[in-house]
């Protein structure tokens, strides 16, 4: 079986995979990083969002072997060990979740949204840019508030 080697959350990682193995399977099943969730498995819900070479992707729609030599950040690697990222803190503070299943994808998308659109995000921008992430509990209201607050917190550093 072919082998894929990449950097995951700052550390080198390597695994033997099949051609059809998806990035999300590599992360969850080979590397034990189960913070990345599979919600729909049809490339729609965004629960599996991770950063690949700095860009948000749906890891259920990327082949593991396509990531050879790449750099992946998952929800586990967003903040240093023992700390949480300002965006995670904002979701906690603003109650941006109910069941929490979509939350890792929401947070990874939110952090990438800040990279693309800057720290000052109005509600319309957040809602528009969140089209790739589906939540079945919250009605999005607090998620939007959390992302705006998280972006502002990232600006403060």
């Amino acid at each position, binding site marked *: 079986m072919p082998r894929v080697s990449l950097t995951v959350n700052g550390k080198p990682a390597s695994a033997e995979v099949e051609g*059809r193995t998806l990035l999300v399977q590599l992360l969850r099943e080979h590397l034990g990083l189960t913070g990345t969730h599979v919600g729909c498995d049809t490339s729609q819900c965004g629960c599996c969002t991770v950063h690949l070479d700095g860009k948000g992707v*749906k890891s259920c729609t990327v*082949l593991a072997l396509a990531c050879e030599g790449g750099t992946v950040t998952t929800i586990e690697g967003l903040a240093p060990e023992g700390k949480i990222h300002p965006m995670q803190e904002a979701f906690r503070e603003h109650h941006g979740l109910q069941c929490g299943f979509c939350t890792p994808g929401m947070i990874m998308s939110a952090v990438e949204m800040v990279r693309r659109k800057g720290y000052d995000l109005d509600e319309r921008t957040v809602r528009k840019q969140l089209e790739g992430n589906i939540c079945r509990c919250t009605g999005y209201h607090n998620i939007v508030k959390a992302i705006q607050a998280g972006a502002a917190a990232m600006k403060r550093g």
Partner: protein
Amino acid sequence: MYDFSYHKPASLDEAARLIAKQDEFKLVAGGMSLIPALKLRLARYAGLVDLGALAALKGIRREGGAIVIGAMTPHADVAASAEVARAIPALAALAEGIGDPLVRNRGTIGGSIANADPAADYPAAVLGLGATVVTHRREIAADDFFVGLFKTALETGEIITAVRFPIPRAAAYSKFPQQASRFALVGVFVAQAAGGVRVAVTGAGPSVFRFREAEAALTKRFDAAALESIELDPDGLNSDIHASAEYRAYCVKVLARRAVAAARSSSASSAIPG
């Protein structure tokens, strides 16, 4: 998903060799349509040839009176390109409306038009602007490229390398997105150039097509009012749970009017010398 062998060639020549050798191999660009289809077992291949390592196929440049976009350029890059925004703002706006941000980071223009989904956005721009599809063998005019439902003029093993868009005088894309998928329930791309006006319609038929009656009327007078008495025959248009053929025909007319109005106002606002 059935298993397959995975190949990531380092050069276009190697990619062409790999894909020419095997009937049951398939090219993959961003994979945003192909991987979901494989997962649903709607498609099965012995091997995938990933074009992701071919840096020469990625990038945007201005070439005289045209914008040339490499086949492996993701939608997000087209949406964010200052060069595209200056020359063909309608194209940047169209790219910004494809799928969602995560799809736009990965999906490519070459992959989109090779797939020729009847509800995809890019085919409307390619046909509406009268673009040229460049492959590793030849150049194909947009009018000859889209042949039918998921069908193009590409030969087996032919690789798209770039798309060349002539810069129009004015253009706009107006889309009614299907609310769940963000694909075009109907999308209309209108472009006014020296040679006349082109109107391309996606989402409504089995393949993107030109709305000739509207083109003739708009070439005479580039004004939404010129479309008042123009009708699109719903016969042969798509009909499904989302919209009937009659409704789609109606949407084409409404969206064409909106696109003309938007094109007129954008050309008025961007009429700055130089």
